[in-house]
């Protein structure tokens, strides 16, 4: 379709202007992170200070928090994706009574706000001695990810090839073999998208680790950052460096696998 050169020029301006609005704040925090942390650093070392990162890592204990985040995220991703594949397989390829009801029960979980169920869950898990443990932080997030994951995998299995399933069955494969040796290998893109989304949600989650670990024994990276902001008030360079480090793992994944992120968040949102 033809549009006038003026309109096209104006469009480029809008495009660039908007991209700058999005990138501006990110530029601000990255600039701050490399800036001098105090007046003496400014006098001695000039304007570029990459040493802020190891220093923030040390003072802010980000090493410890990141490790906690990695552990929690690994547990949540592995358990919830496995459960979602199994449940999505049942809902997507098998016929049984109550299938529709179960599907709607999972859908409900996608919408329930965390803050509604986390308060009673905290008090019940406290009785069981699970608060301030990795499992106390991970299990509620596994439950939430299963709700979305089951929905996501069901969609994939419903569109998977019936002919393939039939052929495998004629070859004498049982339902377990069909799943792991036929459907899962072909479904790698869909599963990778799910893994990335669950990892991102878990890594970025704030409320659940905040509530589930009141004594800070299981402090994930975003919590560590919020804590660091409260504790460390001299200057902003180290805080900014901490913020960049907390955001970096997911942002790096996004840079390399953005199609998966965008596709997942757009298609995952579209209801049938």
């Amino acid at each position, binding site marked *: *379709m033809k549009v006038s050169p003026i309109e096209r020029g104006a469009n480029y301006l809008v495009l660039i202007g908007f991209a700058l609005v999005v990138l501006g704040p990110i530029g601000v925090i990255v600039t701050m992170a490399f800036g001098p942390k105090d007046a003496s650093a400014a006098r001695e070392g000039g304007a570029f200070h990459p040493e802020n990162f190891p220093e923030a890592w040390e003072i802010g204990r980000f090493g410890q928090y990141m490790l906690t985040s990695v552990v929690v995220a690994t547990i949540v991703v592995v358990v919830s994706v496995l459960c979602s594949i199994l449940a999505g397989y049942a809902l997507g390829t098998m016929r049984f009574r109550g299938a529709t009801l179960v599907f709607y029960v999972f859908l409900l979980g996608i919408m329930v706000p965390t803050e509604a169920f*986390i308060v009673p869950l905290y008090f019940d898990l406290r009785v069981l001695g699970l608060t301030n443990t990795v499992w106390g932080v991970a299990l509620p997030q596994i439950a939430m990810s299963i709700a979305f994951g089951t929905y996501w995998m069901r969609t994939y299995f419903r569109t998977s090839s019936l002919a393939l399933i039939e052929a495998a069955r004629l070859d004498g494969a049982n339902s377990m073999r069909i799943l792991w040796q036929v459907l899962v290998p072909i479904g790698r893109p869909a599963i990778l998208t799910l893994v990335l989304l669950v990892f991102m949600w878990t890594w970025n989650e*704030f409320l659940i680790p905040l509530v589930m670990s009141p004594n800070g024994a299981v402090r994930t990276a975003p919590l560590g950052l*919020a804590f660091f902001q409260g504790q460390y008030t001299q200057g902003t360079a180290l805080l900014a460096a901490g913020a960049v480090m907390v955001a970096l793992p997911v942002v790096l994944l996004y840079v390399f696998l953005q199609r998966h992120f965008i596709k997942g968040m757009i298609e995952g949102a579209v209801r049938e």
Partner: protein
Amino acid sequence: MSDGTTTVGRGASRRSARPGWIAWAYLAPALLIYGAFLLFPLGRAAQYSLFEWDGLGESTFVGFDNYIEILYDERLREAFWHALVLVFFYAVLPLVIGLVLAALLTRSQVRGLGFFRSVIFLPQVIAMVVVAVTWRQIYAPDGPLNGFLRLIGLDSLTRPWLGDYTFTLPAVGLIGTWVCTGLVTVLLMAGMSRVPRELYEAARLDGSGPVREFFAITLPTVRGEITVALTLTIVAALKTFDLVYVTTSGGPGTSTTVPSYEIYRRAFQLGDVGVATAVGIVLTIIVFAINGVVNMIGDRK
């Protein structure tokens, strides 16, 4: 074993009859964890909300008193009002900006659209805490925003953006706009790319301008995407927690407190678990109601 008799719908014909228990065996792990750590506590929340409890000692049954308190407690009423204000910043504003942006970009063939899409989607993947820490620096009294205003001679507009009774809520809301607009725009662009070009050509031949084109062709096509975008962003607005916790802690005074923050404060700082869970239940009902209404309007032809 296969069953080829039902052919309604895409999925129906592809399912096969197997003993029912196999399906339940596959569902069991998911249902167990999901039930124990989400559904069950949700039920418990409904139960807790009928009691007065400080989180430690004995609890007393109080019926619907906790819900009545939500109506009368000024701070809680304010919190829900603030959530509504945030809906404007998270949902309405991004939708308006996104519609204009997506329509402009779909109409003309500009290059670099893929890159642009990746850039504007970026705020969605950054941890909200990082976003909040960043904007707190930007809004700081001697931060970049005030610095910029001074630079262009608008000293009168400078203020402590997060310490001002009037401007803090909009300032926090605009962070939400910054986060949500990219998602909404990308969603709408995906929808608009489906419109056949011939439709626009035909409209042009009929002599309709860009504005008519937008209302007659573009808007009706992306109805579904608008529904999805509104659902996502409204729910995000109602669930705002990290942002308020890190930027303002509800302050100054009560000027930026929101339901989620009140739930946390009451349950874990004030020892008022009953009211906290009641607010949680009300929030859940509101989220479901809005979901229902938005989808109902979206589905109507």
